[in-house]
């Protein structure tokens, strides 16, 4: 039998739950509700009046080529961030798992970048790749390559992807390492005796057994790339050049706070809200069932 704490009245439990409920209501439900409400209006430029337009903001967005381009940019960006951060993390985790001596130091060092805030990480990378004073830019120049992410769209995308993936590698590394260490040593040894060399073992035993971890990280990283990379993009490219790095969440900011089109910005937030909802449902369904083997 499960032992449960039971309260006699209703007031004490309510009191204990209130702070959390208040925080959620003030910082989540209220703004989210306001966004939904605002997405149905167009305010005048001075914010003095609002005009009801129904779903007009959404209709306009879906036919707007810039908004659709931003969708494609987001897709490319999040796929690249997810692949780069998970790929590198898996590779490092495999190496760390094989390490016997000094694995503690190695692990600690690999976890550090996670402690760096996205905006700070963005500034760090911006300094290295700054078109005038960046160290890396200078070395690339010595090699005859003219790095300019301010003008070159591909380079801009590359830079924000690297800067966004960097701190994320630590996070993924931790999960992959834990996943690898949860695989019984004897299963790997049995495969070795069965004739599988390292790469075959990885492909047929280790990677399939890691699949629950991999799937979890996939969802979490996509969510990260969609929403939490704002700071990186804002500090490095501000969505440019030519909107080449304007992902959806950056466009919400750019249209709403820079362009002062609050109605459209609110409508975009609502669309993002739906996307994150879908991702969350996928993740919950997965956590309940796990990828079973």
């Amino acid at each position: 039998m499960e032992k449960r704490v039971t309260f006699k009245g209703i007031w004490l439990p309510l009191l204990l739950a209130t702070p959390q409920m208040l925080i959620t209501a003030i910082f989540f439900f209220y703004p989210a509700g306001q966004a939904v409400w605002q997405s149905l209006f167009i305010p005048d430029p001075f914010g003095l009046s609002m005009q009801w337009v129904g779903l007009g903001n959404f209709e306009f967005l879906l036919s707007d080529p810039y908004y659709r381009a931003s969708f494609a940019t987001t897709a490319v960006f999040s796929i690249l961030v997810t692949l780069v951060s998970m790929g590198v993390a898996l590779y490092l985790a495999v190496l760390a798992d094989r390490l016997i001596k000094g694995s503690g130091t190695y692990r600690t060092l690999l976890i550090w970048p996670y402690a760096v805030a996205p905006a700070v990480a963005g500034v760090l990378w911006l300094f290295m790749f700054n078109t005038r004073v960046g160290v890396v830019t200078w070395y690339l120049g010595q090699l005859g390559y003219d790095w300019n992410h301010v003008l070159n769209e591909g380079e801009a995308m590359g830079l924000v992807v690297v800067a966004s993936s960097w701190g994320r590698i630590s996070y993924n590394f931790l999960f992959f390492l834990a996943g690898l260490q949860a695989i019984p040593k004897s299963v790997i040894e049995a495969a070795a005796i069965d004739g599988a060399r390292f790469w075959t073992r990885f492909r047929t035993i280790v990677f399939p057994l890691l699949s629950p971890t991999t799937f979890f990280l996939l969802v979490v990283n996509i969510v990260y790339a969609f929403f939490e990379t704002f700071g990186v993009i804002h500090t490095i490219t501000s969505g440019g050049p030519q909107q080449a790095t304007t992902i959806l969440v950056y466009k919400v900011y750019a249209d709403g706070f820079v362009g002062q089109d609050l109605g459209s910005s609110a409508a975009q937030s609502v669309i993002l809200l739906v996307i994150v909802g879908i991702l969350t449902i996928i993740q919950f369904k997965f956590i309940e069932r796990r990828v079973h083997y």
Partner: protein
Amino acid sequence: MATVSLESLKKSYGKTEVIHGVDIEISDGEFIVIVGPSGCGKSTLLRMVAGLEGVSEGEIRIDGQRVNEKEPMDRDIAMVFQNYALYPHMSVEQNMAYGLKIAKMPKAEINARVAEAAELLQLEPYLKRRPRQLSGGQRQRVAMGRAIVRRPSVFLFDEPLSNLDAKLRVQMRLEIKNLQRELGVTALYVTHDQVEAMTLADRMIVMNEGVADQIGAPLEVYANPQTEFVAGFIGSPPTNFIEAEILGAPAGTKIGIRPEHVAIAPVGQGRTTGLVLYAEPLGAETLIHLTIAGGNAVTVRQDGAVAIPSEGEQVGLSWREDDEMRFDASGRRL
């Protein structure tokens, strides 16, 4: 089918030597059991033969070929692990076929071999199941099947029965023995259970703290233990050890006498006198626990039909001199 030779095999981790030189020549088709208490190095020894642990010194030869530097897959061996080490994401069939697939064997041949092993091990109804849908005994069989299908020269078993319940253990013990006879394959089997060792082995290696104390046929080891450790480890209840001084022999040495060789005699008769602590009547036999002068504990095993002395009674203890085993201060047989 192959012979296996270990030649002054040693293993060190850093500066700590854990196996101090083991020598044995195993002939083709022989069933060798390595037995000893936990931490004696028996598993390490087996893992060295498997190629899962490096060899620090000495040589391992399988069929006359040095295999020290060879990878596990190149040694023509198969191993059954204590926790079975089945691939959890594969069906029973895939588990058994895994090694053959990697060896790029034709599909028809793989299917034939898996079917044959499944029949031999009565696994046919479970071929499509995953390991987690099987009972302990069935998992054990799959692990055996995975070893069999590859038709290796040498079978290695690392405590394969220790995760099973007592009844199943007895049954699987017989199956392993039958299977090994049927396939005629050389086997090395690690266990800490002396009953498994006695019943399975053609010859057994009794390991103690990284040293092979004695190598020999089970009954020979039982009848004629070479060290105090072997005399105490093999046999249940264990051999009684009595300080020789008490019996008038040179000080520092010990006399070992098996419980079944000691008989209760009237007080004043026999070699020494003991105080009966308690008796354990088991039906067919009775175990009587006593202390003798000097505080040594002695166990007597007598037939169930013989009268049992009462607790607290003083009795004489007698045995034949031929049954005495004398050990020097370092535990060696004199």
